[in-house]
């Protein structure tokens, strides 16, 4: 691929998009104005639909996936550490909601339960009930710690080996979740409810917002949107920070980064911890939204699903990753099950298209790798690598020849 054609050569569509990107990049006011327009549209969007419509439902899911993809993007996109066990953080975040915002631990405090800043709905139930915001904070803390624990054994590893170790950790978390019913925490309390799932999970009760219910999805939508905005803001700040530069330096050349005084251990662990923290936020939110935490949600394929989002969108590029997450999310929850599901039966075949979801994602990725390997909205550095043939390997090769 070293001789790939230059950006947009003899391709009018690519040329135009490239010109638009350059324009936006060079003009900060235009970029802000565009961001503002998009934000206003996104705020108005749910009012164009019925408050319980499937479309709003899909949007809420997509926004949660955006948070998750942005988290994985820090680990994989910024720091260049290939993490195939990201589902672990989704799981731990979700279980945080299961543990601390449901009646699951029914016997704590003599059956009266523990309630911290909860509203009237959860206030009377047994079990531990924390305010939704507190649940998010606890989820961030727990997943960040988990991120560091998973990161520690990979510190001396590179590339494929990191992928294998993280994959294994993802599986460990899933297996523990599946078998958690047999892990007793004293009394009748167990670690998880296995495949039965912990349900129901408290719906958030936040001051100034109408009730979170399945009949009105707008509060969910706006909560997810606020989470996305926070995570996007943090992502941009991190990218342009000292830590962000250290991540990119490690991704480019670990030895050189260490020679410049970049502390490898701390910098890598920070990437794992922040990436995991975002996964935890999304996990806790989704648990609450789906009203259940079920061990079957945490399959290995979910890690690949999130990874596919950032590859599709453009690894390392914040806007690209968001687009990738939204696109794949809609393919998953709308295009395949709602639009294309009866294609096989029309062709006289006896299966449901959703069974082929991951085959379709895989096919999409292969198509992307052929047509646009740098993603829909590529990060500049990667685009350079792919289109101009500038990479670490080549530079080193030149030296050694």
């Amino acid at each position, binding site marked *: 691929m070293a001789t790939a054609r230059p950006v947009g050569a003899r391709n009018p569509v690519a040329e135009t998009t490239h010109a638009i990107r350059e324009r936006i990049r060079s003009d900060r006011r235009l970029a802000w104005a565009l961001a503002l327009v998009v934000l206003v549209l996104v705020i108005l969007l749910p009012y164009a639909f019925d408050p319980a419509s499937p479309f709003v439902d899909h949007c809420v899911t997509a926004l949660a996936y955006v948070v998750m993809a942005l988290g994985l993007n820090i680990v994989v996109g910024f720091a260049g550490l290939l993490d195939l066990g990201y589902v672990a953080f989704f799981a731990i975040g979700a279980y945080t909601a299961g543990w601390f915002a449901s009646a699951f631990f029914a016997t704590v405090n003599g059956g009266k339960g523990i309630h911290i800043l909860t509203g009237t709905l959860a206030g009377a139930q047994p079990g531990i009930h924390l305010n939704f915001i507190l649940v998010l904070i606890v989820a961030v803390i727990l997943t960040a710690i988990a991120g560091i624990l998973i990161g520690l054994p990979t510190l001396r590893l590179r590339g494929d080996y990191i992928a294998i170790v993280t994959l294994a950790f993802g599986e460990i978390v899933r297996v523990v979740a599946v078998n958690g019913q047999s892990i007793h925490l004293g009394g009748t309390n167990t670690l998880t409810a296995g495949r039965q799932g912990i349900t129901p999970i408290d719906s958030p009760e936040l001051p100034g917002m109408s009730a979170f219910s399945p009949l009105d999805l707008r509060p969910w939508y706006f909560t997810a949107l606020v989470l996305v905005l926070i995570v996007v803001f943090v992502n941009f700040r991190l990218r342009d920070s*000292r830590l962000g*530069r*250290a991540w*990119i*330096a490690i991704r*480019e*050349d670990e*030895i*050189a*980064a*260490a*020679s*410049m*005084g*970049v*502390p*490898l*251990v701390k910098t890598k662990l920070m990437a794992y911890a922040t990436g995991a923290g975002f996964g935890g936020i999304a996990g806790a939110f989704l648990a609450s939204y789906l009203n259940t935490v079920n061990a079957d949600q945490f399959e290995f394929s979910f890690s690949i699903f999130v990874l596919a989002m950032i590859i599709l969108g453009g690894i390392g590029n914040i806007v690209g990753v968001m687009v990738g997450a939204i696109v794949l999310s809609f393919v998953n929850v709308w295009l395949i099950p709602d639009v294309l599901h009866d294609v096989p039966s029309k062709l006289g075949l006896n299966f449901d298209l959703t069974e082929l979801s991951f085959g379709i994602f895989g096919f999409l990725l292969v198509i992307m790798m052929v047509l646009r390997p740098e993603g829909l909205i590529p990060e500049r*550095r*990667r685009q*350079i*690598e792919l289109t*101009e043939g*500038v*990479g*670490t390997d*080549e*530079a*080193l090769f*030149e*030296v*050694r*020849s």
Partner: protein
Amino acid sequence: MALLDIEDIHTFYGGIEALKGISVTVEEGEVVTLIGANGAGKSTTLRSISGLTPPRTGSINFDGHEISDTPPQDIVKLGISQAPEGRRIFPRMTVRENLELGAFLRSDDSIESDIRRVFDLFPRLEERERQKAGTMSGGEQQMLAIGRALMSNPKLLLLDEPSMGLAPVLVERIYETVAEINRQGTTILLVEQNANYALEVSSRGYVLETGTVTMTAPSSSLRENPDVQRAYLGA
């Protein structure tokens, strides 16, 4: 006391003993060179000093601190900086971004004036300030590697084969600058296979063979030594 005092270090790559008891001293203001063939342990010595491959036994004393156990970032902070073997610039970052990363541990406000200083030493880099480093020629990349190492404001600069893969005219230019950097007050420990240039710019030299020091003398007498001439100067 010497600025750098390495005593009897043994460094391993897994089970392989790459350094079998190396002792080297560098006085403040000197240019000292390590010469030797491939696999003699020259680069490993530098990696041991900078903490990338710490020695298993032995001591490294720098400026009054024992650093054989210190992590790389703290060694950079103490004032040792390395232009690593094979240059290892960040290819997809611009020249300026590379230099800024060289100053990663600094937060003072003279970073800008130090970038200026690097541009004065290597005017070519200023012309290419906004260019991606990976698109530059080998010579320019070497200039950048040295410039980037200077950005941490080191007391001791470790240079690993700055002449590697460069045309002779460029090697000469690089070595003129190395001498200039030393005149401006930076102590230099230089590793080279190209012993001609190394012995010209340095005041003292060590000859390394398979992980041990076989000879040490002022560079002028090493240049005259018939064994050194035969083995490393192509005489």
